């Protein structure tokens, strides 16, 4: 596959007039991800293992991004884990 064909797949949209915004948007999304990429990152399993503790600390008002920066970084990076974190946070806040 040629570069430009991959580009079409990666950044291309179905309709030309949408393409520009779509291209830009995806490119920005990739670059934002790269900007936030660290040499060492936790995996989803490692984050899951401490998510309950992390949520309770956050619920107590502790500065979790300072105390557990690697967890915070993963949550910024991983939509799935972030989604789970937010739901758990709501449960903990409302059940307390």
């Amino acid at each position, binding site marked *: 596959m040629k570069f430009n064909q991959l580009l079409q797949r990666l950044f291309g949209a179905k309709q030309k007039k949408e393409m520009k915004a779509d291209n830009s948007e995806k490119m920005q999304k990739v670059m*934002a991800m790269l900007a936030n990429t660290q040499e060492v990152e936790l995996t989803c399993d490692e984050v899951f293992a401490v998510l309950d503790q992390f949520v*309770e600390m956050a619920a107590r008002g502790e500065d979790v991004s300072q105390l557990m920066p690697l967890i915070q970084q993963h949550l910024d990076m991983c939509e799935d884990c972030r989604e*789970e974190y937010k*739901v758990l946070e*709501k449960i903990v806040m409302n059940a307390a």
Partner: protein
Amino acid sequence: MLRKNLHLSLFLAYNFAMNKRTNEEWLADLRAGGDQQAGALEDLRAIILRGLPYAIAGRLNPNSPESEALVEEVVQETLMRVLEYLDTFEGRSQFTTWAHKIAVRAALTELRRVRWREVPLPEMEMNEEGDASYRELPDSQASPEEQVSRAEMMKRVNRIIMEELTDKQRQALMATMEGFPLEEAAQRLGMNRNALYKLMHDARLRLKKRLEKEGLTPQEVLSVFEQSGK
């Protein structure tokens, strides 16, 4: 049987009156077997049921039969997992938070599956569409110079992606860009979410390092696309 149920009911009422268990009591009761364990499981079930609406909200109509079935399935699965992984609970949070965590993961995994099951993973297929067609795109907000520099940057980044990433990494990147949950993309690619995160982390590092090698930072690339975007 009747006597046993009566006994259980009294036990549950007692526990309800006692409000809640400490972490140690949860562990002891769940390990106890018999009525003691059954009572703890029943209480835990009620607790999980109170949490699940927060997982379902905005994702599924909470009054639909689909939602009811999902709740039942998730509760069953959670209770099984709680018993299975009881020994891994380290007491660093409330036991119930730990149990909610397991329920939330199970619920969202199922909700993602339902939401995405009809959506095919973007394929790496040959595209007959023109070469640099993005070049021709009119963008009223971008100057001709901006359009040219964007087109060139696209081409450059694309070349880097082609050269640095494996097929699987490219496919995963595309899926992510299309909004696929990691969990769903992973399943389609025949791996688990954790492995896919690692694969994507490696891909991101490769791209970042290659950009650096070419004297570019992600911020610089971003700035080319942000100028008149909003």
